[in-house]
């Protein structure tokens, strides 16, 4: 008379066939899609000399190469340091990605420097004396200075931020009187700070004098080190030659893994129910007095003194007439008279309580209820 209801292993396998097939299909589809897709990291990386998208700067790199400039695209400051000589130009397009220690290394490297859209906090290290003033809308601007590279190029699409130039420096492409390009020449080394590098991108290079300025700035030396800081460019190990992670014994990591496995086992132990959850259809719980209470609240919220008083009076009258042996719909005066005779109260007062005007407020209603009670009690007691 008993029948097993648990699924057999074969049954489980059959039930899992379709979901497993779907899962496999999804994994395959995801793998193929990932393989087909081009490397996302390379796509649209701003001012990357290897990037051919509108954001990149491949066109500039090619032009430079045609003019005999060797372009070294590097991702680490250490690589840049290896290549840097007096005869190189270093371009930094996003200083924010360079770590603080490496920033110092970078600042100490020999050769010319072109810094595009610098992170304001990095400026004192990279180019002492230059600070960021305010923002400027990128647009075509006239050189307005005597820097040969700028005067030769003419109008250039510049903007981004404006700088305050030190006295020995020269500012060009002014926005609201502040330069967006600052060039400082010291001891044969030139450092150029640009508020925006948009003019060097593949999209803008052909406009105005953009190409000319870019070539003048970057092609001054035969070697160009284009620093595209990589997020993987970590600072070198600390003093002891070991990082924090190296100091943790390997056993701890593996023990953590073992702990996770133990937690999974405990979860499986606690999570397995002994049999199904039993549900039961329960009857609704409706209290019979709910409608009466609801009407009471409705009276209160609408301040229905008159209706409430009428109901209270009708109830009291019904009980009093019953006790007095009068007909329910007897003449009100007769009832009042009968009550006055029984209780010895003033008939006018009794009539006021039983048939008077409706109360004007909650307080009066409460008083009326008490008065009705008194009359009723007196009739009962007489």
């Amino acid at each position, binding site marked *: *008379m*008993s*029948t*097993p*209801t*648990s699924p*057999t292993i074969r049954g489980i396998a059959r039930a899992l066939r379709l979901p497993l097939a779907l899962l496999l299909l999804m994994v395959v589809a995801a793998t193929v899609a990932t393989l087909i897709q081009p490397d996302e990291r390379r796509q649209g990386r701003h001012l990357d000399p290897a990037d051919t998208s509108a954001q990149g700067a491949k066109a500039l790199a090619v032009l430079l190469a045609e003019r005999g400039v060797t372009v070294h695209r590097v991702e680490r400051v250490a690589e840049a340091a290896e290549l840097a000589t007096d005869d190189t130009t270093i371009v930094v397009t996003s200083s924010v990605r360079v770590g603080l220690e490496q920033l110092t290394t970078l600042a100490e490297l020999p050769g010319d420097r072109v810094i595009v859209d610098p992170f304001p906090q990095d400026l004192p290290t990279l180019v002492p004396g230059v600070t960021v003033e305010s923002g400027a809308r990128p647009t075509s601007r006239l050189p307005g200075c005597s820097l040969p590279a700028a005067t030769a190029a003419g109008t250039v699409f510049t903007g981004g931020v404006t700088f305050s130039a030190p006295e020995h420096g020269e500012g060009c492409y002014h926005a609201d009187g502040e330069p967006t390009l600052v060039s400082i020449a010291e001891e044969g080394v030139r450092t150029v700070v640009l508020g925006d590098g948009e003019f060097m991108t593949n999209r803008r290079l052909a406009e105005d004098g953009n190409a000319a300025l870019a070539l003048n700035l970057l092609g001054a030396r035969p070697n160009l080190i284009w620093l595209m800081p990589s997020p993987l460019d970590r600072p070198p190990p600390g003093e002891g030659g070991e990082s924090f992670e190296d100091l943790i014994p390997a*056993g*701890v*990591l*593996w*023990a953590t*893994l*073992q*702990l996770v*496995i*133990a*937690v999974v*086992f*405990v979860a*499986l*132990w606690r999570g*397995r129910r*002994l*049999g*199904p959850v*039993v549900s*039961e259809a*329960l*009857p*609704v*719980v*409706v*209290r*019979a*007095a*709910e*409608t*009466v*209470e609801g*009407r*009471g*609240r*409705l*009276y*209160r919220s609408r301040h*229905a003194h008159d209706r*409430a008083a009428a*109901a*209270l009076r*009708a*109830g009291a009258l*019904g009980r009093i007439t019953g006790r007095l042996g009068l007909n329910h719909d007897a003449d009100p005066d007769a009832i009042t008279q009968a009550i006055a005779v029984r209780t010895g109260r003033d008939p006018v007062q009794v009539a006021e309580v039983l048939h008077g005007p409706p109360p004007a407020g*909650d*307080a009066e*209603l*409460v008083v009326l*209820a*008490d008065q009705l*009670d008194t009359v009723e009690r007196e009739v009962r007691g007489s």
Partner: protein
Amino acid sequence: MALTGRTGLLALLGTIVVLFAPRPGLAVLVIEGLLLLAVVLDLCLAGSVRALRFTREGERLVRLGDSVTVDLIVANPGRRRVRGLLRDAWPPSAHPAPRLHPVDLPAGERRRVRTVLTPSRRGDREAVRVTVRSLGPLGLAARQGTHAVPWTVRVLPPFHSRRHLGAKLAKLRELQGSHPALIRGQGTEFDSLREYVIGDDIRSIDWRATARRSDVVVRTWRPERDRRVLIVLDTGRTSAARVGDIPRLDSAMDAALLLAALAARAGDRVDLLAYDRQVRTQVSGESRTTLLPALVNAMAPIEASLVEADAPGMTAAILARARRRCLLVLLTDLNPPALEEGLLTVLPELTARHLVLLAAVADPRIAELAAGRGGAEAVYDAASAERALADRQAITATLARRGVQVVDAPPETIAPALADAYLALKAAGRL
């Protein structure tokens, strides 16, 4: 399958081993491998749950409030011992105890597992499933399986008003004239002639019969017998409302049972009909001895449904069942709008052929509210309660004018009040 806490504990201890092992990676691999092996071994060596055979024995009926034992006999025809836990699952309102049973079943043997149910609700309670967790010898893992072993326990209405039955039967005996005090039977139907004994009422002497015999002969009366009583339970929405903590329907059932017990003793034929928009249950043609069991059995699974009762349909069902004149006891609520739109429209059809008695469970809470004083909130509630009471009185008066007798009493007294009303009708010979 299921794991035990022991597996988790071993894995946890493994953490310490891994922490100090010279080659922790390998240690993790070895520990997991050993654990997996032990678990698989345990699963293979555990007794089969699928092979177990179950049968049930025990009671199928219980009064609400009482306990009932249901036995589960587990047979293990397999070759391995089954050791572990068994859960005999029942609906929550059946309150099974204990919830879990430890089992230890050697191969080829049977064991009895006893579950005590103390149901807290009327109706049928069906056994859900039996689940067994069979541990392996190492206690690391267990096989788990579920079996369906059907069994139904019917929870009958409690019939609390049984305690009033003695008093009401004494009253009935008084009516029948069989009271020890030799009071003249107050029934209205001529029963028999018998010899006068001292103490008999001299008014009951039958002079004509006395003249024919040498003895003084008295007439005895007995109450009318073999009348029909049809109890109609309204199972519509108004019966679902709770008075105190129990639905009106349950109080009505209690009253119906007392009335049925009394009427059966009085020699009347009692039938039952439960109706909302369809016939929910009916009992008819039961003999005096089988009537009460049949009634409680029929009433047990009925729950009030949240629909408006269909008065014309109910009338048709009543008229189809009660061809001869009978006492019609309607157990419903004195809900003015529901009655005005329902019963009152079809009442003439019923009163024309039958004697109609309407019994309603009043809510003592309303009287409590009506007496409330002391603040605006209480007084407004009191006014609302007065209004409800007035409505109830008005509908009672309307029904009385239409020839319907109304019994309106709170749940504690509805059963004796209804019995008294029945006895009064019987004494008056109105059945």
